[in-house]
């Protein structure tokens, strides 16, 4: 490990918690990734945090990025080449207000012309982006956001705190209907957002929350121009590296490179390296065929079957990435028989996790415990993967059945949608749970049919997307306040909620991990979900494209991609 380049005093000047985290890192109690994340969270620049973390890369951890833009990636080898066109296959939806985005596809369009205050990279570390840095108070209730100077929108106006305040105003305006409103529930309207000067914004949180930087990279959180009127297609103004030339819903989108973008490339000239981006709207099957035949260069968020079809195609490079995306087996704890923890536990025990992962995802993912915390989450507490135990499950069910005076097998209906790998998980579980005393009927509908009732079914499989922090997802689905919204199981637990609130306000990684250990135990012991695996996702792109990054939320990060024919 290289010698530290700044002193403890300098670290302490940035934030008093950083030296402590540094000690934990040097003692091997937290990983390098966790140290970098925590140091950047507390306001240290990413480049300094990387330098403090030492130059030697632990094998399992990707390199962190320079400070100038955020995303991590190994520096491109060889000479950068400019020019060329990138063509992607992706469903192009109706777009209007970026704050109202509900799908990543739309965000991938908007992120080419607009940008975020922060960026959570493929390594799940969040760094400043349009921000130069942020600073959090010791109680994590006051956040100072410092904007970079000299950033210009594509209409020539400079980015200032007024634009950021306008954007916060849109997020916090219930009439706009942004999902940011719920995410930023710790802000009491615009009175919690203070403009200190033209490049300095201060957030006053009602309750402590360590997730502010990650929230600012939630996909609808594009920073808008202060004169934005509500339709990004009619008014494609942003600070991004491309300009929108054409957008036809369901057909295609065309972007051209901007000459005066603020970030510089390796060759000292403004990014991006590519001249043009074209998205072609196709369904997934047509996209696979187009990629195989070379008509497009990449395919948005390939399904496991697409991965199988494309992984051995010459000329394509597959980049896998672990995620916190999962397909949760969720049980309504306010309804029989799931109100009895023995039944819930029995069904969890009936998951043959390696087999489910193999059948549903061709083994491409990470096995999981029955909790909604993923190994990619900072402060994840390592636990043993539960074994398939149909005998144990049957013993629990027999006890339950004797008490209720019913006969086994216990007949239940499992609802889900025929979308990603849900039918495969459902069919595998039906077979595996038969040995445990369950007789599962399957109710598999099209995605819209399931989303209409996803919070209402007794037993279901629901897909949950990646979130960089466990503390971002747990309050959405496992607290009392979320009943009626996204708490699809109606499960809440006083001890769990108290610990969760504690975790949300705990900066120290080790201390937070200790809390996470307890939270994971509670979810496993009496929680409402089974979770066999965390999905891997893949970026599959033609080999001539260099510096391509696979992001766990399938974001297209294309500003520093270049072509080497």
């Amino acid at each position, binding site marked *: 490990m290289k010698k530290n380049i700044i002193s403890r005093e300098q670290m302490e000047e940035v934030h008093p918690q950083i030296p402590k985290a540094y000690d934990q890192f040097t003692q091997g109690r937290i990983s390098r990734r966790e140290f970098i994340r925590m140091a950047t969270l507390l306001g240290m620049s990413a480049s300094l945090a990387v330098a403090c973390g030492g130059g030697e890369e632990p094998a399992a951890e990707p390199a962190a990025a320079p400070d100038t833009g955020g995303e991590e990636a190994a520096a491109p080898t060889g000479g950068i080449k400019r020019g060329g066109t990138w063509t992607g296959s992706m469903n192009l939806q109706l777009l209007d207000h970026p704050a109202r985005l509900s799908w990543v596809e739309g965000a991938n369009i908007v992120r080419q012309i607009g940008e975020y205050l922060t960026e959570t990279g493929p390594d799940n570390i969040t760094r400043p982006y349009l921000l130069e840095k942020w600073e959090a108070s010791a109680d994590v209730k006051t956040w100072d956001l410092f904007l970079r100077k000299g950033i210009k929108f594509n209409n020539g106006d400079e980015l200032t705190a007024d634009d950021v305040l306008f954007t916060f105003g849109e997020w916090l305006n219930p009439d706009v209907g942004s999902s940011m409103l719920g995410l930023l529930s710790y802000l009491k309207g615009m009175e919690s957002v203070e403009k200190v000067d033209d490049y300095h914004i201060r957030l006053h949180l009602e309750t402590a929350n360590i997730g502010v930087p990650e929230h600012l990279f939630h996909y609808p959180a594009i920073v808008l121009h202060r004169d934005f009127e509500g339709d990004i297609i009619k008014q494609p103004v942003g600070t991004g590296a491309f300009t929108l030339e054409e957008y036809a819903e369901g057909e295609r989108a065309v972007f051209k490179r901007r000459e005066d973008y603020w970030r510089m490339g390796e060759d000292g000239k403004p990014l991006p390296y590519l001249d043009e981006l074209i998205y072609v709207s196709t369904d997934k*099957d047509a996209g696979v065929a187009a990629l195989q035949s070379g008509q497009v260069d990449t395919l948005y968020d390939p399904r496991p079957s697409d991965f199988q079809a494309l992984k051995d195609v010459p000329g394509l490079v597959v980049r896998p990435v672990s995620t916190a995306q999962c397909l949760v087996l969720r049980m309504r704890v306010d309804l029989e028989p799931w109100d009895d923890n023995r039944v819930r536990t029995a069904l969890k025990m009936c998951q043959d996790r390696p087999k489910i992962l193999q059948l549903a995802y061709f083994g491409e993912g990470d096995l999981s415990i029955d909790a909604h915390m993923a190994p990619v989450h900072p402060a994840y507490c390592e636990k043993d993967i539960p074994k398939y135990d149909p005998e144990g499950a049957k013993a629990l069910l027999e006890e339950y059945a004797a008490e209720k005076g019913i006969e086994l097998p216990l007949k239940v209906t499992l609802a889900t949608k025929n979308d990603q790998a849900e039918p495969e998980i459902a069919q*595998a579980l039906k077979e595996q749970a038969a040995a445990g005393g369950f007789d599962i009927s*399957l109710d598999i509908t*099209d995605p819209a049919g399931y989303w209409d009732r996803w919070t209402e079914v007794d037993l279901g499989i629901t897909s949950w997307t990646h979130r960089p922090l466990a503390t971002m997802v747990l309050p959405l689905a496992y607290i009392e306040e979320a009943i009626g919204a996204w708490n699809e199981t109606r499960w809440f637990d006083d001890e769990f909620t108290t610990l969760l609130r504690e975790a949300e306000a705990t900066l120290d990684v080790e201390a937070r991990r200790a809390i996470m250990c307890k939270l994971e135990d509670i979810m496993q012991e009496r929680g409402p979900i089974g979770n066999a695996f965390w999905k891997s996702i893949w970026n599959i792109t033609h080999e001539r494209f260099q510096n391509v990054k696979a992001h766990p939320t399938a974001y297209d990060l294309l500003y520093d991609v270049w072509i080497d024919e």
Partner: protein
Amino acid sequence: MAIAQPTAGVRPSRWQQMWKSVAIIFESRVATVGLAMVLFWLLIGFISLVWTPHEPNASDFIQNLPPNGTNWLGTDHLGRDITSRLMQGTQVILLKTRLPGDSEISIPGGVAIWGVIGSLVLGVTLGLNAGYRGGWWDQIIMQILDALIAFPRIVLYLVVIAALGQGDMVVILAITITGAPGVARLARSLAMDIKTRDYIRAAETRGESVRYIMFREILPNARGPLLVDAMLRVGYAIFAIGTLGFLGIGLPPPDPDWGNMVNEARRNIFSNQTAVIWPSLAIATLVIGLNLFADGLREELTRYQK
């Protein structure tokens, strides 16, 4: 001069009469080929009731295997034996219908068969009433049926299944509702023709009830064309089950039906092409067999009438 004497008093036995009726099929080469194809799948279905090479729903093998010595038609995306699933898929179409509810009880006759029987019962009842009674009966019944016919068939399926959920009985109901208007039109036209015959006049003069005349006088004389039409409709019903399965709104998994098998295999078509081909081929051969059988039968019946 010797004159051939009629063999008065020597009636053919019941078996001889039955064979005479069946033998008409073998007069037509087309009908014979069609019958052979249908019997092949019936035989496969009956065999599957007692034996399949492997457990159809068990994921016992490597996924997406091509045809091999163990799995004659390969395996699907969940590592299940396609041969066994294809064999069991015949049952739900031709041989048995699962009753709704928690019971495991099935009734003889597949979903396609019961769907066509439902269409026949409903369509014939409405068609005979419209054709024989005429007047307002005819107007009202045919207006309603015309409105149903004007609806796109897939939309009708979707409406029925969205309202009632999945299951064998719901698919039967969907096939019944979509098939009945066509049967009713045919039954009406036959009834309008037959009601002008003298024996109907005679029945009316005898004071027989309307129901008696419709079902005891007209229906037996209309059964030939109706039966041929029903054969064709079994083919349509199999297509309907296949279509519903392909849309993911057919019979609930994991028990196989051919449409669902096509739908599931389609998702992996780029890595396992053969898994799509086998159930598609099964649907095609059974439907073609039924159509050939019906066409040949119609041809022979028409010739017999002339």
